[in-house]
């Protein structure tokens, strides 16, 4: 489903060129649970951003569902993000002035869905996340774990095929971190593809397939022996 070939990503920092990614090739099938690990600066977040179409590779090809997405226009890329990809961030990225329900509703609003239809979906997803009673709270009135659950609800409401999570537990205590991971893993059980970027080995080792990155290259790609 996701296929990366010879991906390069070069940043210009002052006079210097920094190779964030170098000749990265990766193939991810539908329904896989994948973790990308590595020290900071190893390019794992850059890789995730490229998979998520937030960043464009300097060179190489990226096929998403057998389509070369690097050829898409900005508008088409936005549409692809909206329909196929859900993001979960370390810092949640909820809009502070909107309630939990309104935050979850945002992707549907951007997609232009009718309001009646939206309300139904939003409350369903929030119930499924176990925070139905927090629907009308603002982010500042929610705990970290609850915030991340709102963010996951937002990432899944458009029923994407892949969830990209960048340090999803990085800003949570152990208990709520564990809850969040369990929720994410439940998504995999339901057939979604999950890519988790982390430098926390404990989280990374839960994934069936583990990728290690160093200095912009993939150094190992192992399957967890069950």
């Amino acid at each position: 489903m996701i296929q990366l070939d010879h991906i390069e990503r070069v940043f210009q920092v002052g006079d210097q060129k920094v190779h964030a990614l170098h000749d990265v090739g990766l193939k991810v099938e539908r329904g896989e649970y994948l973790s990308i690990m590595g020290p900071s600066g190893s390019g794992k977040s850059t890789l995730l951003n490229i998979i998520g179409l937030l960043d464009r590779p300097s060179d190489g090809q990226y096929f998403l569902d057998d389509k070369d997405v690097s050829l898409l226009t900005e508008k088409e890329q936005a549409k692809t993000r909206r329909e196929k990809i859900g993001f979960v961030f370390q810092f949640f990225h909820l809009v502070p002035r909107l309630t939990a329900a309104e935050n979850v509703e945002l992707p549907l609003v951007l997609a232009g869905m009718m309001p009646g239809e939206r309300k139904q979906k939003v409350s369903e997803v929030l119930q499924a996340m176990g925070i139905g009673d927090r629907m009308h709270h603002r982010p500042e009135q929610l705990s970290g774990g609850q915030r991340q659950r709102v963010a996951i609800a937002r990432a899944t409401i458009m029923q994407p095929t892949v969830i990209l999570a960048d340090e999803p537990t990085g800003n949570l205590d152990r208990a709520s971190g564990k809850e969040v991971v369990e929720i994410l893993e439940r998504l995999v059980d339901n057939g979604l593809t999950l890519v988790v970027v982390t430098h926390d080995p404990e989280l990374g080792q839960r994934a069936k397939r583990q990728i290690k990155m160093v200095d912009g290259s993939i150094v190992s790609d192992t399957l967890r022996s069950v």
Partner: protein
Amino acid sequence: MRITDTLKFSLSTFRGSPARTFLMLLAMSIGVTSVVALTALGEGARRYVTDEFSSLGTSLLIVIPGRTETTGGSPSLFIGETPRDLTLDDARALLRYSSIRQVAPLNIGSAPVSWKQREREAPVIGTTAEFLTIRHWEMAQGSFLPAGDPESAGSVCVIGQNIRNELFGASSALGEWIRIGDRRFRVIGVLQSAGRSIGIDSQDLVIIPVASAQALFNTSSLFRIFVEAKDRDELSRVEALVIKTIKERHQGEEDITVVSQNAVLATFDKIFRALTLTVAGIASVSLAVAGVLIMNVMLVSVSQRTPEIGLLKALGAPDRQILVLFLTEAAMLSLFGALIGLILGELGIWVMILLYPSFPLTAPIWAVVSAVSVALLTGLVFGALPARRAAKLEPVQALSRR
């Protein structure tokens, strides 16, 4: 994204930062208020002046002896050449044209007016019965000068309210004999105090038949001839006719000046219109200032909301959508500001009307429409730069900012 959702989203940003929203609304509304209130003032002044002139009658021509024209040539040519006087016969000669409704000769002077022990100096006008309708004056008591031969020097007079009060006090003036200069006149009428009048105040006037005035002031000439045309549209034709007639009567010498009420009116109208436009222009500077403020605050808002913009992009909002969101925000701010400004402006006008009831104040429609559209336009123009900046943000960098 649906339009209603776009509007709702912008509204939510106003809720998110009420102080910022309030300041922007304030700036915009001050701009619109000043445009509306100042143009109302300018327009009011224009209407006031034109109304004044219209009360004199717009189909009126005033014939003045002498020619106001500078000509070249040797001064010696003009030695011994005085302009011929306007006479009663000149006035009467004009009456034979069907396009002229009525003519009123006018003589003016100053004379002591007395009744019993009371005396005062007053402007005395000699004219005919037609003058009343030409000036649109009305009588408070009695009647105006009798119609008839202007050459007959009747001993009757009409007085203004002030003169009546000062000479007669509480007692009745009608039928009393007063002395004007060295002659005696019977009071046959008192003028209504006119609401407004340019030139001589009708309340201080004494009016006597023109022939009596000529005798009183020992002159055969006239000060003015008022000519009222039948049809306003024929005014220029009547003007030519008047000049031609009097020229013929003055041995081919064009020695009069004809002033049309319309020409004066048009000039004043033009002056005040220009004044109103100028004032509107100055006021709209404050609109531009409001626009700059909107730009400034929007730029701050874009950098404050950078993570949010990154998030919207990650959730699948195309650049255009971000642009539309921010432009909508700017447009809504300026529209709301403009509406508040309109309300404040109308309120200001209302207060001014309470203070000066006789002054005709209304904000002209063109000013209201252009103030609102200029406000909207400045909002969009000055909102464009921040909105473009927001749309062009790189999602990765926008998201990494916290």
